[in-house]
């Protein structure tokens, strides 16, 4: 089951920020022997535990994180996602496999080089914030710079800028205990941003927050990503969050990546029954794009008239356009008509019978599925 490998094979060009290959993390006695032993690696989690007393938190995971993307790792608790993100900067020492940051082998780094990596290249935001309760907001944000040995005046100045950037002006002198949960996580975010890292790692940063605050924070992350274009690796157990933030999503189960792809691929063509069950309640019209639902224009007349929508517009946007116009809409890209969507096609997407290969109820007319682009082609699209 190496979905990951096939998907990452599609990338070309510049070096990925993180490149992970065949990564294993096994907890327990004599954990080293597990990844190398084909007999043991074939076992399920329960059998492995009873045979060896070991737990494989991460099993043979491979993926690349591309520059500037938001890479989401999602899975339920115990799926190994938090262990995985800690392996990236060796907060947890991996058992086997390769990790490279900008092509440099992370597992071969010595203590000083590793500290260098943690200080300047990858900063992490934690679920329960991990703030130092005895320091003010400003000094918490400046803490990473202090670790680097930046002088007091300079680090405070830089910290103050970041505090303003995350919307905490006027709270510089407060203690973490005097802040709300959302504000604390803003401090956590600011602390990570203050060291100006190449990659931001988020470990379920918003799970401990109220739903409304969580939405604010998600929008904050979207905004930051839009403004700065920083590469992000985002761990979450919340599917909505994953779909909202992720350029690509790796879905984990029992330590393995069961599917890796864009939100649209995950929702539109689940790799197995587990993923299908997972995405069943997702409102498809808000994730699927019209590119999936369109068909070639039947006639020149159809290609010239009607409202125009972008190919990456969501189905729900197209529904609105089609409903207003009362007829099919054209999918336009750079003045060229790629195809058309009509109400029937859009309805199929909402009903979950379109674009889903191998669904039991594949009663959808074959003609509608023909123009559906392959998932690989979609993932090439810069989003």
């Amino acid at each position, binding site marked *: 089951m190496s979905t990951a490998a096939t998907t990452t094979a599609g990338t070309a060009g510049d070096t990925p920020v993180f490149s992970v290959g065949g990564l294993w993390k096994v907890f327990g006695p004599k954990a080293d022997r597990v990844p190398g032993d084909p007999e043991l690696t074939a076992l399920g989690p329960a059998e492995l535990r009873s045979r060896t007393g070991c737990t494989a938190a991460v099993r043979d995971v491979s993926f690349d994180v591309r520059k500037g993307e938001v890479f989401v790792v999602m899975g339920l608790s115990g799926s190994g996602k938090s262990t995985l993100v800690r392996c990236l900067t060796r907060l947890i020492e991996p058992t086997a496999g390769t990790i490279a940051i900008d092509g440099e082998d992370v597992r071969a780094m010595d203590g000083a080089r590793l*500290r260098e990596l*943690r200080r300047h290249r990858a900063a992490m935001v*934690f679920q*329960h914030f*991990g703030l*130092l309760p005895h*320091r003010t907001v400003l000094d918490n944000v400046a803490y990473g710079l*202090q670790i680097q040995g930046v002088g007091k005046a300079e680090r405070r100045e830089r910290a103050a800028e970041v505090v303003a950037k995350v919307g905490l002006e006027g709270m510089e002198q407060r203690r973490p205990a005097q802040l709300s949960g959302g504000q604390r996580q803003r401090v956590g975010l600011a602390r990570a941003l203050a060291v100006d890292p190449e990659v931001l790692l988020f470990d379920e940063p918003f799970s401990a927050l109220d739903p409304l605050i969580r939405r604010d924070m998600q929008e904050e992350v979207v905004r930051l990503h839009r403004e700065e274009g920083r590469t992000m690796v985002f761990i979450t157990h919340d599917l909505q969050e994953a779909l909202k933030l992720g350029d690509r999503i790796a879905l984990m189960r029992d330590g393995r990546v069961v599917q890796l792809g864009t939100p649209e691929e995950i929702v539109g063509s689940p790799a197995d029954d587990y993923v299908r069950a997972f995405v069943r309640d997702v409102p498809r019209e808000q994730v699927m794009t019209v590119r999936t639902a369109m068909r070639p224009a039947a006639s020149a007349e159809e290609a010239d008239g009607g409202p125009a929508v972008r190919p990456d517009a969501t189905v729900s946007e197209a529904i609105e356009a089609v409903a207003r116009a009362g007829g099919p809409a054209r999918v336009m890209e750079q003045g060229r008509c790629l195809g058309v969507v009509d109400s029937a096609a859009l309805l199929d997407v909402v009903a979950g019978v379109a674009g889903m290969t191998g669904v039991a109820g594949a009663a959808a007319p074959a003609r509608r599925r023909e123009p559906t682009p392959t998932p690989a082609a979609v993932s090439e699209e810069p989003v």
Partner: protein
Amino acid sequence: MATITATARKDSPPGPLTSPALRKLLTLALVAAVLVPLAAARWASGTWPEALTVDVSEPLGEASDWIIDNRDSHPLFLYFFGHVSNVVVIAVRAVYLALLAVGWAGVTAVAALVAWRAAGSRLALGTGAAFLACGLLGMWVPTLQTLALMVVAVAASVAVGVLLGLAAGLSDRMHRALRPVLDTMQVLPAFAYLLPVVLVFGIGVPAAVLATVVYAAPPMARLTALGLRGADEEVLEAVESLGATARQRLLTARIPLARRELLLGLNQTIMMALSMAVIASVIGAGGLGDRVYQALASVDVGAALAAGIPIVLLAVVLDRVTGAAGARLGEAPAPHARALWAYALIAAVAVAVAGRLTDRLEWPDGWVVGIAEPVNRAVGWMTDHLYSGVPVVGGTADWAGHFTTWVLDPLRDGLQWLPWWSVLLVVAALAWLIGTWRTALTAVLAMAAIGVLGVWKPSLDTLSQVLAAVAVTLVVGFATGIAAARSDRVERLLRPVLDVFQTMPQFVYLIPVVALFGVGRAPAVAAAVVYALPAVVRITAQGLRQVDPAALESARSLGATSGQQLRQVQLPLARPALLLAVNQGVVLVLAVVIIGGLVGGGALGYDVVFGLAQGDLATGLVAGAAIVCLGLMLDRVTQPTERRAKKGA
């Protein structure tokens, strides 16, 4: 096996007669059936058989003589203990002279200002008043002596404790090695520490300071380790993820995160140091404790009270100020903190200089209020009117006499009449039922060691006093604790009383009981009960109040009466707390019963005092070792399977 039985018992809380307990008893009965006839046939006697004792007093006496002979010549003393001793003497002397040089006004001002900055203006006033009261009672010089000894002892205890705590906090191996030692040191009575240091250093200030350090350092070490280990894992991970070195992590995260525990450790260390500094008067500490000791020796209650009140005041002030400093940790610092410190310092210096210039460094004689005389008159009146012959209720001395005749004597004679092996068997059965086979084994070995040391009889005498005191403590303590847990008003009334009682050094409790009951075993028991009660009440009340409210609510919704709620929900669920209360009660009672040797308690405590007074260290050391064994045995017998990380007291 131990863990299995423990979980099994958790599933069925009520009644010790569940199957694991029965199984343990049966196993024990089986072992006893084999061993007891053998033992009884060979060494049949009520008391510990002669054949099984080892006379250690001769080698101990020789060792003590050797040390006395070689103290001035042997390199170990010349180059190590000698230097330690000198450093301690010089340090205490220096602090004492410095305090004298600042003058009474200066000392009071400095103390009040430190209290102000650390704990607020109300405690500052209290601190100032307490110091002035010490002067008014004519105890200024002894107070300074005690303070000087305390300053040196606390500084050394904190240094030692923090170092040990750092080691135990950062290294798992050190933690495993240190924890049982620290746990055990915590349960031993203060008296047990006196003789070994006297053996090495002789009677005097160095011995007193070192005994104090040995007694007071363990809580600092424990709490430092606890704080370092208890740090929020995610914070440490966050620090690690920012690329901190091990040193940066320790200095900027782990130690600051443990500040609360460190301050609590400081608080406990100070309180234990004060307690010990007072007790150490029997090995030459001088100061307030010495005044109490001398006064008690001549049953001069007035003089003892005049010295005892400053001890209590010091204890309360030190406890409240350090406690308040700990409680303030979470708050943001007040603005201009530094400027205020500077003002405080300048003011204190001004007061001290003014005192110097006006040449009023010593407490003026005219300001001393002698309370010894009126107190003694009152005690005399009490002796005449309350001791005996009060109609209907009888007198206090009568009560003490009755208690001795009807409770202590039969208990002691009964224990001493019991065949020695049956005592061991009872110890084993109790310890195993409550704890694990490990604790049972330790308890039995400790008890056997007492027999081997040849102090079986006096130890059983002490044990009888402990049992009587524990019984009274538990009955009164559980009743009060339940009342406090069920009524907020009772708790509000009790809280300040418990607060003060829990901060007072053990020694002080002897003063009022001597006034009321004279000397003998009954007053020793009474002092022990009063000393142990607050902890038992507090742990009981807390345990009952912390019972899961949902469980209580569901019982209430089923229509349980408040009696049913107490019996069927609160008490069973609070079982760990109640066991802890028993354990603490036993440990605290033992400590004071031993000290009771000073007021006619006899038995092991008296042996220690006698050994010190007569220079017969062998007797004292054997008694000290027996105290250690008795403490170990009593602690293990009452030790619940899961020991709490922190003690309630």
